[in-house]
């Protein structure tokens, strides 16, 4: 039932966008924004599976974003892969990386988990920088990423890429929501809120958390693929801690407890970022002050705040 409704909503969103884009209302700004929104929204959504649902605060989520981007870019540059095949392969490779790192990390709790994920991310980052022969080092993957058309979709065109990116985002959102509704999602939340009870019921903390880690990593890998399509390359900064930091920022802006919170946060973050870059060179000063106001003023994401406020009001009614 939930799946059907979600899918219907998702389809409607996608249709509205495509109507906007391929009729007179399109603008170049909208197309660019759609691609970036889909990319970072997917990254934030996938990270929130760990932070919001599993209670695992990862500081190293950008590792999978970078892995997806580099795997996809390198596969496409061989010239032997079609776009869908390369996407599947890149996501699979990212999942494998997440499996290995996750197996080492998910045993740790709280801050130690955060730091170990950070350490692996930095390790991947320094590997990208030093393996110049494969990755191009600090210059990133150069020479462009070929995008041969498939099934009538030509990703070299920005409007096609925007529609494709949004399709990926919407499909992933529906899939992630299904995962959270499933018994698996319920188990994750129980592990987060009451690990003792979960252990008593015989749930394997390790397996559930590892599975969540791999799923989140895979979707982050898909986000990385979209990013590499957008900039026609891949750069070490994709796997740097600042990218993880921004994803966390987006989640916190929107809210961790509501499924769509990270997407709202992403939209706010991107608009904020673009607006600040356009009006001032004191980017940090502006962003920092806005951040302080939100964090110390609301103490939670905007959607969290809104939902609580709404519930409180409803609760007060006779």
């Amino acid at each position, binding site marked *: 039932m939930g799946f059907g409704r979600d899918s219907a909503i998702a389809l409607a969103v996608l249709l509205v966008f495509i109507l906007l884009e391929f009729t007179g209302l399109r*603008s*170049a*700004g909208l*197309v*660019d924004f759609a691609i*970036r929104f889909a990319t970072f929204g997917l990254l934030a959504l996938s990270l929130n599976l760990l932070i919001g649902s599993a209670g695992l605060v990862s500081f190293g989520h950008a590792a999978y974003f970078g892995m997806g981007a580099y795997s996809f870019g390198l596969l496409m540059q061989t010239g032997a892969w079609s776009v869908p095949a390369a996407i599947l392969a890149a996501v699979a490779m990212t999942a494998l990386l997440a499996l290995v790192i996750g197996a080492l990390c998910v045993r740790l709790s709280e801050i130690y988990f955060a730091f170990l994920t950070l350490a692996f991310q930095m390790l991947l980052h320094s590997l990208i*920088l*030093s393996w*110049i022969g494969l990755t*191009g*080092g*600090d*210059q*990133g993957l*150069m*020479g*462009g990423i070929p995008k041969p058309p498939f099934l009538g979709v030509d990703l*070299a065109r920005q409007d096609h890429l925007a529609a494709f990116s949004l399709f990926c985002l919407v499909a992933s959102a529906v899939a992630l929501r299904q995962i959270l509704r499933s018994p698996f999602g319920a188990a994750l939340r129980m592990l987060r809120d009451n690990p003792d009870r979960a252990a008593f019921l015989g749930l394997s903390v390790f397996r559930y958390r590892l599975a969540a880690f791999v799923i989140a990593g895979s979707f982050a890998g898909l986000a990385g693929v979209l*990013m590499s399509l*957008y*900039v*026609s*390359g891949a*750069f070490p*900064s*994709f796997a740097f801690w*600042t990218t993880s930091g921004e994803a966390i920022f987006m989640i916190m802006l929107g809210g961790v407890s509501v499924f769509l919170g990270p997407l709202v946060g992403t939209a706010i973050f991107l608009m904020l970022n*673009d607006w600040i*870059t*356009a*009006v*001032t*060179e*004191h*980017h*940090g*000063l502006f962003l920092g002050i806005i951040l302080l106001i939100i964090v110390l003023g609301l103490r939670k994401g905007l959607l969290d705040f809104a939902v609580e406020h709404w519930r409180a009001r409803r609760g007060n009614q006779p």
Partner: protein
Amino acid sequence: MSTIKPPGLHRRRLIGVGAAAAITGFPNIGFTQARQPIKIGVPTILSGRVAQLGISSRNAMQIEVDAFNASGGLDGRPIELIVRDSRGVPAEAARIAREMISSDAVEFLFDAEPSSGGFAIHEVVRETGTVTLHINSETSSLTADPRQRFWNAFRVARQGIHDSIAGGYYAASVARSRNLRRWMTISPDYAYGRDTTAEFVEFARSFNADIQITGETWPRLFQADYTENITRLNQGRPQAVYSCLWAGDLVTFVEQASIFGLFAQSQLFAVNMADYTTLQQVRNLPRGVHSGNRYLRNFPTVPENLAFATEYNRRFNTFPTNWSWQSATAVRLLTTALRQVGGTNPREVAAKLKGMTIESPFGAEGTVTMRAEDQTLVDYAIGWGTTISADPFVENMQKADWATIRRLEAEWKRGKGWG
């Protein structure tokens, strides 16, 4: 009336603090005839460790743009610069470039990013076909590698290979006269550092086969402390040390190496020493460091060069950098092309830029040329000299010979399979 202001200027005033030198530098120029301005996007870095890159690029562009607008622009159309900060993140540089093209409708780009962001923007304009002048990217492959070349991208900057040939030639002759055989290198571990060092070594050895590289050390880019690299150099007891560290990193290295007594035993060849921001910050500048010119107001020794530095100093209360002369040259090249074409048609402007020669205070012989075959700047002044502790900071400048540079550059390209 239309007024020309860089974006965000009045908002910065609202913040109300600092950067006074930068703000007072921009006069508002009125026009009797309101015409659509020619928008030029400038993605660059204005924050963090290399903010000086963007600031000194923007300053120089503004001087030249003001002069162009004051003299009537392009048939009354003034140039408007849209400068934005990528914070040194290549993906953000690509994003900003894309947005400038699609949302701000800029007609040209001055890419004032360093190499990393420059390559990202290169990929963007390969798709969009926007005429782009790369201003601060010195990595040779950007224009030397034919796969990187397309009709609408030009480089208006010194190029690693040119510096390396000039530096190698100079170093080889110094090494011969002082019998310096054992060399070590210390350069930042990223594309520019590695390529430039490898090219320098290749050419120094081709001019003087006695030069031996006995060791190398590769600090990270922007490493805070060079102690471990200096002790490594100390162990090797080289007669000469080559470095392409730059700006704050070079200053830190020189200060630390001084107190280790490194320069008592080794000659230093630092290609990026002779830039005012660097020279003025070194407190204990060792005498006799060999350096290439980045920007010096007395090299080339022509009145126009001195006048440029004086005007820059008057408006911004500091001296131009290497990035400044490159930016000024980019504006002069583009505005000359615009006036010759009499419009902004990208194909026509690009065709005009190809092979164009203009008079320039920064030229080795009074002119610089946008070489047609690889769309990169040539004939700019390159020289090497030795440092002294006070103004003019560098003496005994020896001018590099462009005939030699061209010949060896061509050989080098053939060797790479790029000929």
